[in-house]
C-alpha cells in the first residue's frame, strides 16, 4: 500500500527526521526566539551579550599589558585579544548551553514530535548570531587600529565554519550524554577552562615552547585563532601551519574537528529515540 513509508516514519523519534524544511524552520525559529528574548528581554538587551566579552577583554588587556607586560611585544595585541575572546566566547557559549539544552527543553521533547537535533543546533545558531554581532565590534577595532582591509579577510569565513562545526559537534555529543550522565556538565566546565588557557587567547601561538608546538596546535581552537591572526590582523604573524611545523600537522587538528563532529552526530542519532524517555 502507498502508506508503507508513513508506517516506517512513525517508528519513533529521530535526530533529523525526514522533512528538512521543517527541521530548518524549527531550528531557525527556536534560535530566533531565544535571540529575541535575550535581545529585548532586558532593558539593555544586546549590550549584555556584548558586555561579557568586552569586560573580559578589558580586564585581560589591563593585566597583560600593564601588570604582566606580555602583550607589549605583540603587534596589535588588543585587537587579537578581543578577536580571540569573541571566538572563544562563541565556542564556550555553544558548548556550555548545548550541554543542558535537551534537559531545559524537556517540556517540548516530551510533548511534541520533532527532530531532536533541532535543540542543540538552535543553541549553536543562537550563539552564531551573537558571534556575528560581536564580530562587527571586532572589525570596528580592526579598522580603528589602522589595519587595511585585505583579500585574506575572506579566509575568516571557512575558519569560522570550522569553528562552528567543532562547537556544534561537541554540543551534540555532550547534550546527548548529559541526559543520562549529569556530571557531564561540571566536567565540561573544567574542560572549558583548560581550553581557555590552553588555547592562544591571551597569548599568541608562537609563545608555545618548541617542544610542545605540534601537540598544542592539534587543538583546533589554537589553529583557528592563529590563522585568523595571520589572515585578518597581522600578515607578518606566522600562519597556523608555520607554528604547527608544516601543513601536515594541521591535518591533525582538522581531523579532530571532523572526528568530534562525526562522533557527536553518531551518538546523538543513537540516543535520539530514547531522549524523551530518559529525561
Amino acid at each position, binding site marked *: 500500500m502507498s*502508506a508503507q513509508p*508513513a*508506517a516506517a*516514519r*512513525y*517508528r*519513533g*523519534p529521530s535526530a533529523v527526521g525526514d522533512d528538512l*524544511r*521543517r527541521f530548518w*524552520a*524549527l531550528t531557525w*525559529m527556536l534560535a530566533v*526566539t531565544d535571540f*529575541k*528574548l535575550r535581545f529585548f*528581554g532586558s532593558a539593555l538587551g544586546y549590550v549584555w551579550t556584548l558586555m561579557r566579552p568586552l569586560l573580559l577583554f578589558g580586564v585581560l588587556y589591563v593585566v597583560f599589558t600593564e601588570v604582566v607586560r606580555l602583550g607589549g611585544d605583540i603587534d596589535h595585541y588588543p585587537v587579537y585579544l578581543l578577536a580571540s575572546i569573541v571566538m572563544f566566547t562563541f565556542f564556550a557559549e555553544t558548548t556550555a548551553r548545548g550541554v543542558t539544552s535537551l534537559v531545559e527543553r524537556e*517540556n*517540548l*521533547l*516530551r*510533548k*511534541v*514530535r*520533532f527532530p531532536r537535533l533541532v535543540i542543540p543546533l538552535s543553541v549553536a545558531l543562537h550563539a552564531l548570531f551573537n558571534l556575528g554581532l560581536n564580530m562587527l565590534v571586532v572589525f570596528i577595532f580592526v579598522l580603528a587600529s589602522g589595519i587595511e582591509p585585505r583579500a585574506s579577510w575572506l579566509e575568516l569565513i571557512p575558519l569560522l565554519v570550522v569553528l562552528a562545526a567543532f562547537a556544534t559537534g561537541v554540543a551534540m555529543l555532550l547534550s546527548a550524554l548529559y541526559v*543520562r*550522565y*549529569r*556530571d557531564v556538565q561540571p566536567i565540561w566546565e573544567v574542560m572549558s577552562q583548560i581550553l581557555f588557557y590552553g588555547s592562544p587567547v591571551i597569548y599568541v601561538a608562537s609563545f608555545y615552547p618548541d617542544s610542545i608546538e605540534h601537540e598544542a596546535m592539534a587543538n583546533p581552537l589554537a589553529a583557528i585563532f592563529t590563522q585568523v591572526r595571520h589572515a585578518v590582523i597581522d600578515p607578518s604573524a606566522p600562519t597556523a601551519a608555520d607554528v604547527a611545523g608544516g601543513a601536515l600537522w594541521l591535518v591533525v587538528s582538522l581531523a579532530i574537528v571532523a572526528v568530534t563532529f562525526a562522533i557527536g552526530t553518531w551518538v546523538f542519532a543513537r540516543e535520539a*529515540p*530514547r531522549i*524523551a*524517555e530518559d529525561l
Partner: protein
Amino acid sequence: MSKTFRLPHQRYSTLKERALHPLSSRKHDELVALRDVSFHVGTGEFFGIVGRNGSGKSTLLKCLAGIYGTDSGSMRIDGRLSPFIELGVGFNPELTARDNVIINAIMLGLSRREARRRFDEIIEFAELQEFVDLKLKNYSSGMSVRLGFSVAVQVDADVLLVDEVLAVGDGAFQLKCFDQFARMRAQGRTILFVTHDMAAIERFCDRAMLLERGEAVSIDTPERVSQLYREINFGRAAVEPAARPGQEVRIGRIWCEDPSGDRLVTATQGDTCRVSMEVEFLRPVRFPVFTVAFRNEVRHTVFTATSVAHPSAGAFAAGDRAIVSFAFENALAQSHYTLTPAVGEYEGEYHLLEQREDVASLIVEASLHSGGVVDLPTRMEVERG
C-alpha cells in the same frame, strides 16, 4: 503494540556511582506501560481512550505521536498526524500572543507563511483580538488554553491526538470546542481523545477503549466502556489490609446492593439501597456500634447510617464475624459519594474501635436536580384562596 520502560533499579546517574558500582548498575526494573495493545480506528472516527492515572493512556498517545519509540509491534497511520498532545506546548510567557501563535503553529507543522496566513483566524476563534500584543504571562490560564486550542484546530491534520483538553476553559468556550470537534469529524478527520471525563466520552465518541495497567480491557461503545470504567474505579472492593498489632476490630469489604442482591455501582435516587460491611472482632465487644458515613463530592457528610437507631445487635466474642447491612430509601442528591465504615463501642460513653476512610464509593443518579444535598420525599398541597 507494547511498550516497556526500563526503570533503573536505582538510578546511577553520575560517573562516580557508575565507577563504584560497575556491575550493579546494569540492573533495572521493567515497567510495562503498555502490553499488547492493539486497535484500529477508522477514518473519521472519534475514538476515546479512558483509564485511571498510570494506566498507560498518555504513553499510548506519546507512542502514537512519535515521541516515544515502541518496543514491539507496529503502528500505521494514514495521513498527516498532528504532533501535539497537549495544548500550548512551547508557549513562552515572555512573548506576546502573536509570537506564541506563530511559534506554536510552526511546532505543530505549519510553515511560517501558512502560520502567518492563518493568524487572524486563530485569534478570532480564540476570541482574543484585544489581547494579541499582550505578553502571555499576563494571560489567565483559561485564555492561554483557548489560544492553544485555536492553534491546534487550525493545523490541517488528518489525525488529531488530544490529551485532556476539555477540563479547562469556560462553559461557552467548551461548547465551541465541541462544535469544532463535530465539524472536524464531519470533515472526515479522525480524533483520538484521552480523558477521565465519562460524560464527554459518552457525548462525543463513536467508540472507546478502556486501558487498565497497560492492557486494553475493552474496546466497545462509549456507554459500555464508561460503565466498566465506573465499576473498575468506584465499585472495586477495597483490598483488605492485614491486621495491625493491637487492632480490636477489622472491617472487611463494604459494598452497596439493590433489594435483589445485585451489586450497585450506580444507584438511582428513590430506589431502595442496601449498604453492607464485613466485620471481624478480634476481642470481645459487648455493645458494638456500627456506622457508615456517606460523604459527597465536596466532602460533607450528608448521611450516616448507624446501628444506634436500631435494637442492639448483641455482644460479640473474639473471632466472631458478621455482615452488617443498612437498607434505606435513597433520597441522596445526584453526586459521587464515598463511604466510610466504622465500628465503635458504647460503654457509658462511645469510643471508636476501627474506621476506614473512604474505602468504597457510590454514584447516585437522579432525574431531579433540586440543588439540595438530599431530595426528601414531599407531599404537596395547594389551597386556593
